[in-house]
């Protein structure tokens, strides 16, 4: 039972990452490879605040989101002027630098040793200890993230984002401040990714840099693309597929080291197959083409 709940909690956490990336990649057309970095920023901020200052879960999460949003400016302000694939490379660079900081700034992050003993979350005085309790919290935050992204993309603001995705020059010629729209979308997306990070840190109670690598970013991108970019349910479907299906490998009797590789081969191949056969993903509306 706990195992089943564990899978569901992972689906919730990753669906927050996927839906927030979709705001940026699917709706605005900006493929970011830095989502793992923002995920990690949320996790480290919240974990360190909880351990050093004893701050409660919600405060840590909010501050983590703030850090994510602020640092998103560091990457979005300079690199949003770059076109398609150069933007990808710039976010890639940011991801590598942030990861380097997690791994090397040992005075604060303890580097590869990681941070153990992160307290379990307490919401309004109620300490969540059981898997079931955490499941409720994770589900609530996942619903919140989906609701926020849904509200944004359903609003006139979201319509402008999609206009930018389809034709940036046209959106600009209609008097939209394209740059500001992109920066805001990036900040919201980064803050939501940081929220997922905080949730993750307080769930597993131990974090180290290996959870926030560029491979993690690519995994989230795959979730969005395989499920379908720019659609309300695509990211959730992609997340569920990529979290649940590899777990099935365990039941087929593969040892966990082999299963880890198989899982990555699985989503690597799936990414190629999708791009060749169905670039819009399973239920998506946007195929990174024009």
């Amino acid at each position, binding site marked *: 039972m706990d195992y089943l709940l564990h899978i569901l909690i992972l689906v919730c956490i990753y669906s927050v990452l996927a839906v927030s990336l979709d705001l940026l990649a699917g709706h605005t057309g900006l493929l970011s490879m830095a989502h793992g970095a923002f995920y990690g920023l949320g996790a480290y901020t919240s974990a360190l605040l909880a351990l050093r200052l004893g701050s409660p879960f919600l405060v840590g999460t909010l501050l983590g989101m703030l850090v994510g949003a602020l640092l998103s400016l560091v990457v979005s302000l300079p690199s949003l002027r770059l076109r*398609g694939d150069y933007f990808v490379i710039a976010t890639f*660079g940011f991801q590598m630098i942030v990861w380097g900081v997690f791994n090397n700034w040992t005075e604060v992050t303890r580097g590869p040793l990681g941070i153990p003993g992160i307290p379990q979350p307490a919401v309004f005085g109620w300490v969540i200890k059981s898997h079931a309790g955490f499941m409720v919290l994770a589900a609530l935050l996942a619903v919140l993230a989906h609701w926020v992204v849904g509200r944004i993309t359903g609003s006139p603001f979201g319509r402008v984002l999609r206009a930018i995705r389809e034709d940036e020059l046209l959106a600009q010629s209609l008097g939209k401040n394209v740059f500001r729209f992109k920066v805001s979308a990036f900040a919201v997306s980064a803050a939501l990714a940081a929220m997922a990070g905080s949730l993750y840190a307080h769930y597993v109670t131990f974090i180290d840099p290996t959870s926030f690598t560029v491979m993690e970013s*690519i995994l989230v991108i795959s979730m969005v693309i395989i499920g379908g970019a720019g659609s309300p349910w695509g990211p959730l479907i992609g997340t569920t597929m990529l979290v649940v299906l590899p777990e099935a490998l365990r039941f087929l009797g593969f040892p966990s080291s082999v299963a880890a590789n198989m899982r*990555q*081969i699985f989503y690597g*191949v799936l990414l190629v197959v999708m*791009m*060749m056969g169905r670039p819009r993903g399973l239920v998506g509306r946007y195929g990174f083409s024009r």
Partner: protein
Amino acid sequence: MFPQLLANALIAASIYGLVALGFGLIYSTTRFFHFAHGAIYTSAAYLGFLFAVWCGFRFPLAFTLAIGAASLLGVLIEIGVYRRLRRNNATSIVLLLSSLGVLIAAQNSLSLTFGDSSKSLHRGIAGEALQLWGARITSLQLTMIVVSFALWLLTWVLIRFTRLGRMIRAVGNDPELSRVVGVDADKVIVVVYAWGSGLAAAAAILAALDTDMTPMIGFNALLVGVVAAIVGGIGSIQGSLLGALLVGLAQHLGVWKLPTQWQDAIVFLTLLIFLLLRPQGFLGRPIRKAEV
């Protein structure tokens, strides 16, 4: 201290330079970031290990086979994946994503086959250490630099002065137009993938002779190689050399003041600074926004 750091930078640059050269050549012909280049690199090193250690072939034979097989792999990726995508008018982002998929699948297949523990090709062939202007450098490392420079020179001559090179530049410039004048773009692109992959494979073998290999080497070499290519000016042959030297210097001179583990962060900081101030790199032509 200083001459040694300079020598280390040069040795590193000889590897990055070849990766960047192949990557840039492929970019300037097909106009997208071919991340699976890293998979070719790793495959070449492990194929070298397979032929030399498992099959027990002599080094020259083993390495020729490994480089040949790796460049064939590059061609297969082009024909099996990229060409089909291009037929569907895929954007450069779609091509980039699919090449990421290839990279991840290939890297993990290698790690499944050979395991994650580090493998080594070098059985006491590093040669004796030479003292050059106060720097210690093994004869193997000197060979790396010489071979790398020779391959760079060969590529430069090929692209600049031969008929084939003119065709390659033509396809990179305008595939449609080159088709009109009777250049078979698909064939030219296959040649580019074979040559570019061969360069990465040669770099991988050279590096594997000097240091151990793990399934991650290709990814790391690719990242630094991409930075070198962009910093130098992507698509420019002289740029790949210049970029590799600059990245090598940034990495190794940075170590003067900072602990070694910050090397990668320095490399990517260099990248971000370039993307911000001069996205076309040292020698590249300015990027026009209308080219989206």
